[in-house]
């Protein structure tokens, strides 16, 4: 039996494959298509304190080997989440990590304080990096602000904190270090790349919000490089995200230094892709006679 188990903060995952925020709803959407309890961990769609209507249509547009989205954190708010979504999530039998976002530090703090009291929630992912909300500079674009948000949340909760980083920065390592210094248990990277597309007939943007976040296989090499850079420079676990479509993509991120990985866009194309990737990773470990997946993490061979 190969060991697929990985630990992130206080959370023990049965395997390193997690469903990324915003691509898996609140899990119930996938119940008929996926054996949910087999997934390593589920990160919810981001919730905010108050409901958000999100951005105008169109909200998605396909690009070469990728897609742009500008959903704008549409969600029903904290109270609705607790009442309508949490009961189902709590019954699945796999760690549930709630993704949260706020307009300011106070909102992150209040949300974390409320979630801290709920036993069935294993951890909190701080979405400080959604590119589709209008505010003066994203938290994840500034090391000091990142530090302050993580620090505030750290004060109020003993639950595992994952800080989700933006790739739209000059030096992602610097932001990752700020999250680590403030007490984050792990960092997840990357969120989407800011991009746009134009209809050349009408000269109008293809997204209602003009710009959106680029995801899918086209971002994988850049995301991989960022995971590689960050994991060599911090001591907390790195969760790799960015265009993972297959088990070999997942293994590649782990070799680069990711302790676990998150599947995003691929969930839209193949609802049961997480299950397929878990199987594929097991096969890889067997083939390479690796007994414990931890041996794979950061096993990058830099000799040429």
């Amino acid at each position, binding site marked *: 039996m190969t060991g697929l188990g990985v630990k992130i903060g206080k959370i023990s995952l049965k395997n390193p494959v997690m469903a990324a925020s*915003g*691509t*898996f*709803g609140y899990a119930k*959407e*996938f119940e*008929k*298509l996926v054996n949910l309890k087999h997934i390593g961990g589920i990160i919810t*769609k981001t919730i905010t304190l108050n409901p958000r*209507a*999100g951005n105008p*249509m*169109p*909200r*998605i*547009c*396909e690009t*070469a*080997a*990728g*897609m742009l*989205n500008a*959903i704008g954190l*549409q969600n029903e708010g904290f109270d609705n989440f607790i009442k309508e979504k949490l009961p189902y999530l709590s019954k699945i039998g796999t760690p549930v990590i709630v993704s949260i976002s706020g307009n300011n530090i106070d909102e992150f703090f209040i949300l974390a304080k409320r979630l801290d009291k709920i036993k069935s929630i294993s951890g909190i992912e701080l979405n400080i990096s959604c590119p589709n909300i209008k505010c003066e500079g994203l938290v994840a674009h500034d090391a000091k602000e990142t530090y302050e948000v993580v620090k505030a949340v750290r004060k109020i909760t003993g639950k595992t904190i994952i800080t989700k980083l933006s790739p739209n920065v000059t030096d992602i390592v610097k932001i990752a270090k700020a999250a680590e210094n403030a007490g984050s248990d792990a960092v997840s990277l990357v969120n989407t790349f800011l991009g746009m597309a134009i209809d050349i007939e009408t000269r109008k943007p293809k997204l209602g919000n003009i710009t959106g976040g680029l995801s*899918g*296989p*086209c971002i994988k090499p850049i995301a991989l490089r960022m995971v590689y850079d960050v994991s060599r420079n911090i001591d907390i676990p790195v969760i790799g995200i960015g265009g993972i*479509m297959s088990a070999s993509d997942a293994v590649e991120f782990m070799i680069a230094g990711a302790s676990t990985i998150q599947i995003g*866009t691929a*969930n*839209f*194309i*193949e*609802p*049961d892709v997480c299950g397929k990737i878990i199987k594929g990773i097991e096969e890889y470990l067997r083939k390479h006679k690796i007994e414990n997946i931890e041996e794979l993490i950061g096993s990058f061979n830099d000799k040429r």
Partner: protein
Amino acid sequence: MKDIKAKILSNEKTRYVYYKMVLDAPYIARSAKPGQFVEIKCSDSFEPLLRRPFSIHRVKGKGSRVKEIEILYEVVGKGTDVLSKKQKGESFDILGPLGNGFVLPRAHAPNLEPRAIIISGGIGAAPLVFLAEELTKKKIKTIVLIGAKTKKLILCEKDFKKFTSEVYVSTDDGTYGCKGFVSKLFHNILKTTESNFETVVYVCGPHGMLKCIAQICEERNFECQVSLEENMACGIGACLGCVVKTKTGNKLACKDGPVFDSKEIIW
């Protein structure tokens, strides 16, 4: 809803830019209702990346032998172009049936018989033939209005005629049937037909047409069910990409629709 591998039984151009594909998909064929759709993974490569939604055009076979579904599609972009080149015998992943379909009429008032008026604009005919079949199976009086820009874009006239004798056509340029928009034809039909029916209107087509038909229905106090089309990624309510603004907040075309009560929509 299931994600299954379906084999292509045929894939042929019907006319102009329109194609019809028959798929061996027993589970979907048996559980599908008119107005529901499927998400097809057109390619195993990353081009196109996302699945494409197609309404279920017909379900073929009888009783336990129901096993085929038909997709009627227009080649408009990358996804449908790839699809049009697929050969008989190839197979791909297809997820469905998805969404909520049309609701068949129930007579409310004791002395009023139900009557369905189906209005189709261009490729909007795709989900409506299946609907016409179900309505006439239930012996509901059905009138069909088909509109398109020009004669060669008129779809499914023969198919509809298999189910009802009352099929009327209009073209914007007058090359076939009445000249003008299908909304004008709708007005004319309402003037010349009896009105002691409980009328339900079913409509699928371009956005402007839907809005116009919805308005006429509101004036006449007819129930009107519109089938909407939006860009979508997942098809199962996870990505929130296909939002429709309604009087009771944001709804999703994939999960809450694609069929909506026209009075609910903020046009």
